C-alpha cells in the first residue's frame, strides 16, 4: 500500500516537474526556428518506432503543434523484437531508435539510409565524444544521431551492503544469497561474467563464453531473479540488496529510495548509445529529419532527460539542467576515467549470436 501511495505521489511530482519545463519553452534559442520552418512546409505524418517510455509524451504534442506533422508513435520492448518488424518492412517506419550493436546489424543488412545532416542543424548540440563513440558501430557517423547513452552497473542498497562496492565480484558473494538481481538478457548477463574474467564482452571465442557461462551457473543459486524492468521497482521496494541495472534507471531509483547507490565496476562494463536512424523504406524522410532535429533542440532534449532520466548526449541541454547535483552527477555523466574498460556492444554475426544464445540457455536451464 505504501508503495502504491509513493508511486502515485511520484507521478504527481513528475507532473509538477513537467509543467515546470513549459517555462523553458519561452527561452527557445533562435537556431530551432530554422529547423521547424522546413518541416512546417512538409506537413503529413511521421511514423516513429521507439523504446517503451523513452520520450516525454508532451514533446510529441509540441512537435505536432509547431510543425503540423502528425506523429504516429509505436513502442518496442527489445532490439530483438524491433529488428524483424523493421526488416520485414510490413510497416514502413520513418524514425527508429535502436541500440549500438543493432544499428550495426541494420547497416550491415542494408536496412538504413544515410541521413542528410544539412536538414539537422541541431546536431551541433550533440557532444563530439558521443559522435566519436558512435563510430564504433556507425563508421563515419552517416546513419545515426545519438539520443540517449549510459552504462550498465550495480545498484546497491547502502542499508544492506556494508562493504564498498567497486567490482562485479560482489555478485558472487555468498553473503548476498537471494539478494541479487541479474539482467534477464543474453548479452547483458554474459557481459557481467566476461568482464569479471577480464575478457572483452564482444568476444567470439567459445572458450571464453563457456567460462563465463560456468561462472553464471555457479552464481545462479545466489540470484533472487532474472529480470529486466523490474530491477527498478524491486530495488526501490528493498526486495534485494544488489541489482544489475542501466544507469538511466539509477537516477530515478535514487529519487525514490535514497539508500540506493550506483557504481560502474572497475573491471569495466557496457557503454551503450541509443540513436535515431531512418530505415531505407521510410516514406516521410523530410519529416523524419525534422523530428530528429526537433529532438536535438536543447529545451526538448532537456524535457526528455527530465522525463526518462537517461543521460543525454546533448551538451546544450545538459547546461540547461537546473539541479546542480544532477548536472554534475557522475551517474548521469560519468567522467572519462570512470569509463575506462567500458566497451560498446558490437554485432557479432548470426553464428556468434547463436553461440551466446545457446550458452545463455544453459545458464537458464541449469
Amino acid at each position, binding site marked *: 500500500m505504501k508503495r502504491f501511495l509513493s508511486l502515485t505521489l511520484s507521478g504527481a511530482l513528475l507532473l509538477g516537474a513537467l509543467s515546470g519545463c513549459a517555462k523553458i519553452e519561452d527561452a527557445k534559442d533562435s537556431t530551432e526556428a530554422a529547423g521547424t520552418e522546413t518541416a512546417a512546409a512538409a506537413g503529413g505524418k511521421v511514423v516513429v518506432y521507439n523504446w517503451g517510455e523513452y520520450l516525454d509524451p508532451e514533446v510529441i504534442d509540441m512537435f505536432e503543434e509547431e510543425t503540423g506533422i502528425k506523429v504516429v508513435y509505436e513502442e518496442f520492448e527489445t532490439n*530483438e523484437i524491433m*529488428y524483424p518488424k523493421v526488416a520485414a518492412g510490413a510497416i514502413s517506419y520513418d524514425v527508429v531508435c535502436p541500440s549500438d550493436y543493432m544499428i550495426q546489424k541494420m547497416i550491415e543488412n542494408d536496412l538504413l539510409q544515410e541521413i542528410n545532416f544539412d536538414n539537422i542543424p541541431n546536431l551541433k548540440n550533440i557532444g563530439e565524444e558521443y559522435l566519436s563513440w558512435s563510430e564504433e558501430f556507425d563508421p563515419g557517423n552517416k546513419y545515426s544521431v545519438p539520443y540517449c547513452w549510459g552504462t550498465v552497473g550495480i545498484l546497491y542498497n547502502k542499508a544492506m551492503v556494508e562493504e564498498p562496492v567497486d567490482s562485479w565480484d560482489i555478485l558472487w558473494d555468498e553473503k548476498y544469497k537471494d539478494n541479487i538481481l541479474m539482467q534477464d538478457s543474453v548479452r547483458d548477463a554474459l557481459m557481467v561474467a566476461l568482464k569479471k574474467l577480464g575478457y572483452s564482452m564482444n568476444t567470439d571465442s567459445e572458450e571464453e563464453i563457456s567460462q563465463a557461462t560456468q561462472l553464471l551457473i555457479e552464481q545462479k543459486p545466489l540470484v533472487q531473479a532474472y529480470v529486466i524492468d523490474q530491477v527498478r521497482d524491486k530495488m526501490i521496494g528493498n526486495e534485494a540488496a544488489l541489482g544489475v541495472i542501466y544507469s538511466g534507471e539509477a537516477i530515478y531509483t535514487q529519487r525514490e529510495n535514497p539508500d540506493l547507490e550506483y557504481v560502474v565496476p572497475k573491471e569495466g562494463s557496457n557503454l551503450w548509445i541509443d540513436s535515431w536512424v531512418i530505415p531505407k523504406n521510410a516514406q516521410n524522410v523530410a519529416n523524419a529529419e525534422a523530428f530528429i532535429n526537433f529532438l536535438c533542440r536543447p529545451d526538448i532534449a532537456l524535457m526528455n532527460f527530465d522525463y526518462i532520466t537517461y543521460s543525454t548526449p546533448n551538451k546544450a541541454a545538459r547546461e540547461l539542467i537546473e539541479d546542480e547535483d544532477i548536472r554534475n552527477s557522475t551517474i548521469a555523466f560519468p567522467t572519462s576515467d570512470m569509463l575506462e574498460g567500458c566497451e560498446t556492444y558490437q554485432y557479432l554475426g548470426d553464428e556468434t549470436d547463436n553461440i551466446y544464445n545457446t550458452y545463455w*540457455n544453459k545458464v*537458464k536451464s541449469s
Partner: protein
Amino acid sequence: MNKKKNPLLSGPYLVWTAAFIIIPLILIVYYGLTSSEGTFTWANIMEIATPENRKALWLALLLSVISTALCLIMAYPLAMILSNLKFNATGLIVMIFIIPMWMNFLLRTLAWQTLLEKNGIINMVLKFLHLPALNIINTPYAIVLGMVYNFLPFMLLPIYNSLVKMDRNVINAARDLGAGEFQTFTKIILPLSLPGVISGITMVFVPSLTTFVISDLLGGSKILLIGNVIEQKFKQGSNWNVGSGLSLVLMVFILISMAIMQKYDKDGEGAAF
C-alpha cells in the same frame, strides 16, 4: 425445421478459422520443418533432444501434472458440494469463480508476485503475527501456485456441469438396491462424472504445460519451462525456425490429451460452458 441453412451464415466463422487458426498453424509447420535458408530439415524438431530442452520439457510436464492433480483434488469435492446445494448454485459459481476472471490474467499473476515477495503483503502479515516468513517466490512452488490459482475454474466448471446433469433417479435407484454412500459414489457418481473430469484435466493440463508467463513472473525467470524456451527462441534469439520446431513437439502432447478427451467425452457432456 429450417433444412436449407444459408451457407453464407458460416462464412465469417470459416474466414476467422482460416485466418487465425489454419494459416498460422501452416506457418508454424512450415517454419518448424525448414532451416533459416528455407530448406527442409528435421533439425528444429530434434532440438528438443538437447539436455537443456529435455529438462525444460520434463519440468513443464512435472509441474503441470502436479497442478492438474491439485486442481482435481480441490475441484471435485467442491463441485460435489455445489451440485448438492438445494438452490441453483450457478449464480454462486459465477460470482466466486468467473468474476475474478474478468480481470486480466497477467494482472492477477502480477498480484501474486506482490503478495509473495520477500517484503510482500503475505510476509508482512506473517511478520505482524510473529509467524515464520513464507519464501516460495521464485521457486517451482510459486509456479504451481500460480497455475492452480489461474486454472482452477477450468477444472471446477466441467465437473460441476457433469454432476448437475446427472439423473438423480439413477442415484436413488442405486440406494434402493442397497448400495452404501461410498459404493454409490464409486459405482455411479464417479463413472458418470468422468467426462467432466477428463475435460477438466485437459483444460488445466494444456495451458499449464505451455505457459511461459506464470513461470516468468512467479519463477523469477530462474526456472525454464518448455514454454519459456519457445518464447526465448522467438523473442530473444529471433530464431523462429527452432521456436516453431519446439512448438510442434509440444503440439504432440496437446494432441494426445485431446485424443484422450475425445475418447471419454463423446457427447461433449463435460463442456465447461
